[in-house]
């Protein structure tokens, strides 16, 4: 299990370096997919299986599809992948920064508590607590989702400006 967690941590950092090094949005979205998948791996490695499933469904299933679709807005004739000069430079830069960060931390404790798989996990129970006694919090979350709907509709309303109007 420790190997899986280590693999996940490695994938998370390097996925995020891939995002941060300013490639074209197609590849940046790919880097985020790598990061989110590694995140799922970490969470399930620590035994937080339900939140891992939620992360998988929402990030990879829902949001990343929309992001990959929206990357079409940023289409370029010659997309820059991680092989191009500028991106390679930034990848190296971030790797150096990461190494310096590792050097600054005086002691790293490799031990971490890994929960074992069991039928009832506290995270799974916790999500049902939100519905059972969430109360105002649940109401606020629902309200936020509602106003997001209004906000998105108002922001993207068709007007007579721009390139995509009818």
């Amino acid at each position, binding site marked *: 299990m420790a190997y899986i*967690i*280590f693999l996940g*941590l490695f994938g*998370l*950092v390097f996925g*995020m*370096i891939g*995002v*941060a090094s*300013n*490639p074209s*949005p197609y590849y*940046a979205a790919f880097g*985020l997919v790598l*990061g*989110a998948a590694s*995140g799922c791996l970490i*969470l399930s490695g620590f*035994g*937080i299986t339900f*939140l891992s499933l*939620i*992360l998988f469904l*929402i990030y990879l299933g*829902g*949001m990343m599809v*929309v*992001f990959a679709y*929206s990357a079409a*807005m*940023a289409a370029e004739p010659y997309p820059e992948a991680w092989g191009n000069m500028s991106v390679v430079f*930034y990848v190296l830069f*971030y790797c150096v920064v*990461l190494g310096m*960060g590792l050097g600054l*931390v005086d002691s*790293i*404790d*490799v*031990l*971490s508590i890994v929960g074992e798989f069991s039928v009832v996990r*506290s*995270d799974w*129970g*916790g999500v049902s*607590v*939100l519905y059972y006694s969430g109360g105002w*919090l649940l109401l606020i*979350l629902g309200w*936020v*989702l509602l106003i*997001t709907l209004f*906000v998105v509709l108002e*922001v*993207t309303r068709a*007007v007579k*400006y*721009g*390139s*995509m109007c009818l």
Partner: protein
Amino acid sequence: MTLTNLTIYSTFMMAMAGLTLHRTHLMSALICLEGMMLAIFIGLALWCSQMDSMSLSINPMALITLSACEASTGLAILVATNRTHGSDLIKNLNLLQC
């Protein structure tokens, strides 16, 4: 500080540095924001599991709900920018400079 904490903190800092230092596309700025949210989500879920308390697990759920809202608003703004500016390049957003 465990290796896990260090990884999550440095993931967040990478994404934040990427957002602030250099972006060509608005789209990849939004992806960086999502990366920051991802790092916080993982850190929060691990924190709740370390505390091993049932009611604390509400926090990551609330977080991911709001981050989904923020991502969708960001994409809506991307569409609006594309309408008015013709592309989503950050360097085109220069109408309001002094």
